[in-house]
């Protein structure tokens, strides 16, 4: 069966909407060496050369069509890769596939033939931990320079020893003749470095592009310029307070609270902490303000990519975003690195006087429809923009799933997947709002999804404000009782995700019995979404490549971590 053909969603291994792990075990037969239980889902331990068989069975026969994340880690006695599988139809149905490999020969079969998104995830695992994946089409380092020595998250790596990475061993990309090898028709091609410093990369991203005239033959994103060892730093912080400031720095496009929620949700589930309802409402409101701010910036920069540097749309969108930023500043005391969530609640209550805060927030959401109308007039109703974006950067739904695309990118391709609704957390399931899905699969659809999501977020905020306003004064509990030090039981493992501004932002934590995580893995939505870029833009014009990149709305801080 080819990768793009999938049978109708099977119901094997499902009992009353829950995953039936016994049935799955029976399905996999003797390939299952052992069963494991993680906090989020059950898991199967398999042999390193059964990876493709097992994942293929789970994907095609049990319907686990979403490879959410690949976590690699080194234990005292073995290496381990964990494939976190989910279903796009129901992400609460999860299964972990655990692949241990011996320390002296960490070689495992690649999952790439089953899930294309595994290519990058396995490259990252190889780069940082040192597991080799046989059959991965392009097993190179992905975040660190090619000349780096050792695998920094591996067990025997000396993290105190500084490393001088010489660039001279690098091949100079400008010197080589980069003509495409299988250039049969004799047409000349041109290799073009787009980035790492380029007006349209929205950060330090390097696209190795091969052009035939103005058309893109091949594009290969080169990432890692903004790698800041976020996972390593989180592993050195204590659960209670020291990790929370880091998520703000992943997706720094004002999506801070959404990121903080990813950690808060994971750690709270890991340590079994409650969050008061009142704090959940505040969290929901703050997170949606962040989503609006983030989407408005995506809209603004997309206008830059399509219109050019002097477009009015950019400033108009920034003007609206500024209002959201001001409200967030009132709420958290910060404009960029909020550090507002705490395990079990939030840092402090709404600012006094509360009426003023509510009024300001309502003014903002009430003004949004008019602003939205303006953006539609400037962008989506403009015929030139339609000519530029409709049917360009096409990402078919099956391709989107293959690459593990989530968030507005998946929803712009007609994949109805939103963790706020499908895997409810916070206060979302109590509120009245809709998941926005467009099935155009093109740049226009992704733009439209973000614009409509801004309106949905405004609806959520309005309802939260109403709830908060009527909340009895004596029940305004912003923080539950949380132990001073959190020490989960050793070898408790959990993978939890929230709907960030760009998609599914997940975190895997393995505790080692101390007050710091043994392994902290971040599943970045931008990392997976960026993988779809070659799929979208090969064969199209260079201008469409830029537009597609803009429509993906990546943040390099989150891609590289």
């Amino acid at each position, binding site marked *: 069966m080819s990768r793009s053909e999938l049978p109708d969603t099977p119901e094997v291994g499902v009992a009353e909407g829950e995953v039936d792990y016994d049935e799955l075990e029976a399905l996999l037969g003797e390939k299952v060496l052992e069963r494991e239980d993680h906090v989020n889902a059950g898991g199967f331990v398999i042999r390193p050369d059964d990876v493709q068989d097992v994942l293929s069975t789970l994907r095609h026969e049990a319907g686990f069509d979403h490879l959410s994340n690949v976590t690699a880690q080194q234990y005292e006695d073995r290496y381990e890769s964990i494939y976190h599988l989910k279903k796009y139809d129901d992400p609460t149905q999860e299964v972990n596939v655990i692949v241990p490999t011996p320390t002296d020969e960490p070689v495992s079969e690649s999952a790439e033939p089953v899930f294309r998104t595994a290519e990058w995830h396995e490259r990252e695992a190889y780069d940082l931990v040192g597991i080799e994946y046989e059959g991965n089409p392009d097993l190179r380092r992905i975040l660190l320079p090619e000349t780096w020595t050792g695998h920094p998250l591996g067990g025997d790596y000396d993290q105190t020893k500084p490393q001088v990475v010489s660039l001279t061993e690098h091949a100079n990309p400008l010197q080589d003749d980069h003509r495409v090898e299988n250039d049969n028709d004799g047409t000349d091609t*041109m290799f*073009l470095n787009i980035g790492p410093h*380029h*007006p*349209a990369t929205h950060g330090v991203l390097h696209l190795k592009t091969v052009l035939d005239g*103005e058309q893109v033959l091949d594009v290969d994103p080169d990432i890692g310029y903004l790698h800041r060892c976020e996972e390593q730093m989180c592993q050195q912080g204590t659960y209670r307070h020291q990790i929370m400031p880091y998520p703000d720095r992943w997706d720094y496009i004002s999506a801070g609270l959404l990121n903080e929620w990813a950690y808060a949700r994971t750690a709270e589930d890991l340590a079994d902490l409650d969050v008061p309802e009142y704090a959940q409402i505040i969290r929901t409101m703050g997170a949606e303000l962040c989503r609006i701010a983030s989407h408005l910036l995506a809209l603004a920069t997309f*206008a*830059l*990519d*399509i*219109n*050019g*540097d*002097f*477009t*009015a749309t*950019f*400033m*108009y969108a920034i*003007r609206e975003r500024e209002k959201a930023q001001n409200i967030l500043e009132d709420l958290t005391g910060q404009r960029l690195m909020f550090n507002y969530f705490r395990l079990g609640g939030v840092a402090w209550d709404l600012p006094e006087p509360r009426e003023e805060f509510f009024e300001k927030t309502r003014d903002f959401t009430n003004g949004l429809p008019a602003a939205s109308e303006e953006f539609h007039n*400037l*962008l989506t109703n*403009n015929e*030139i*923009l339609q*000519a*530029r974006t409709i049917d360009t950067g096409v990402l078919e739904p099956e391709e989107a799933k293959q690459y593990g695309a989530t968030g507005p990118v998946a929803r712009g391709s007609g994949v109805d997947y939103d963790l706020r609704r499908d895997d409810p957390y916070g206060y979302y399931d109590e509120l009245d709002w809709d998941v926005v899905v467009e099935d155009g699969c093109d740049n226009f659809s992704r733009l439209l999804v973000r614009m409509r999501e801004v309106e949905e977020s405004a609806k959520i905020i309005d309802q939260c404000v109403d709830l908060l306003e009527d909340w009895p004064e004596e029940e305004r509990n912003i923080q539950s009782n949380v132990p001073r030090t959190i020490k989960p039981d050793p070898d408790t493992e959990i993978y939890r995700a929230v709907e960030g501004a760009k998609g599914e932002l997940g975190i895997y934590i393995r505790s080692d019995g101390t007050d710091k995580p043994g392994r902290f893995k971040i599943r970045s939505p931008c990392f997976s979404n960026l993988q779809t870029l070659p799929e979208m833009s090969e064969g199209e*014009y*260079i*201008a*469409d490549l*830029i537009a597609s990149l803009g429509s993906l709305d990546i943040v390099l801080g989150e891609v590289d971590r």
Partner: protein
Amino acid sequence: MTAPLQSALMPEQLANWLGLDAYGGAGTFVAGIIASALVATLMLTNAALAGPWAKRKITAAFTDRIAVNRHGPFGLLIIVADAVRLMSKELIVPEGADRPAYDIGPILIAFSALFAFAVIPFGTLGGINFQIADPEIGLVFAFAIASIASVGLVMCGYASNNKYSLLGGLRAVAQNIAYEIPLIVTAASVVIFSESLQMSTIVAAQTETLVTIAGISIPSWYAFVNPFAFVLFLTANLAEVGRNPFDTPEAPTEIVAGYQTEYSSIYFVLIYLGEFVHIFLGGAILAVVFLGGPAGPVLPGLVWMLIKMWAVFLFTQWARSAIPRVRIDQLIEIGWKGLLVLSFANLVLTAVIVGVLTL
């Protein structure tokens, strides 16, 4: 048709006033140099005003900002500050640049834009007729000189030894060829009315009254006589000067800055200057051909001419702030399949109608 209103051109007038005409040809030559210097200074002043200051202020007004306001009144001294800043920057020539083409390119761009102003009738101010020359082929001359800029763009593009420059240069040439033909063909449809390519004659032909409504007589500006041609010309002109929706040759978010990517310091100034003067040249031709040139009530002719040129400049900035950019293939398609066909249809129709009416 009516004779030109002002028969004496600026060089002759100057020669007369300064007593240079006593020296024969040499005197006229000197007077011509002085006249050229005056017109060039006028245009450079306009470009200096537009580039560092007015462009910022206009764009800011469109985009909800304030822009420069700390350097002197209304931030006007930013012009001085920017001039010092740009001139004092290091001139970086990339390795492998093809010289002297790399050096000639920017000079050609600035020169071609300025040179074409030799035939533009600016009208009079204080009795001086601001027009250097008025050849019978004035309109063709202006277009011919202006299109030399394309050569400069190609030189900048390929001589920079930069792939973005190369892409930008190729785009610029493809665009200029695709849009200059409709531009000239549309202008030719106006010549059918005026029966002359001479700038002063075209202006004079537009002074007649078209209709009188409620005591106000509307002059027979060709924008009123043939509004279709006016719109065509305005559109093609946007492409000619490379402003949205046709700013593909520069397209900063796609190909960094196109042909000018590798230029710094004084070369950068020359290219930018050329660009702005070119916009004003487009405005000047538009004003002469469609808006009655320097004609207008109360104010002197030169002032009216400048107002019309600035109006066109304002229009380009408006388009830049509001309209998305088309893709290169769409741009070429619009040029060859749309504008070219429309402009020829306009030419033929105008010719037929004028022929029938004058029979």
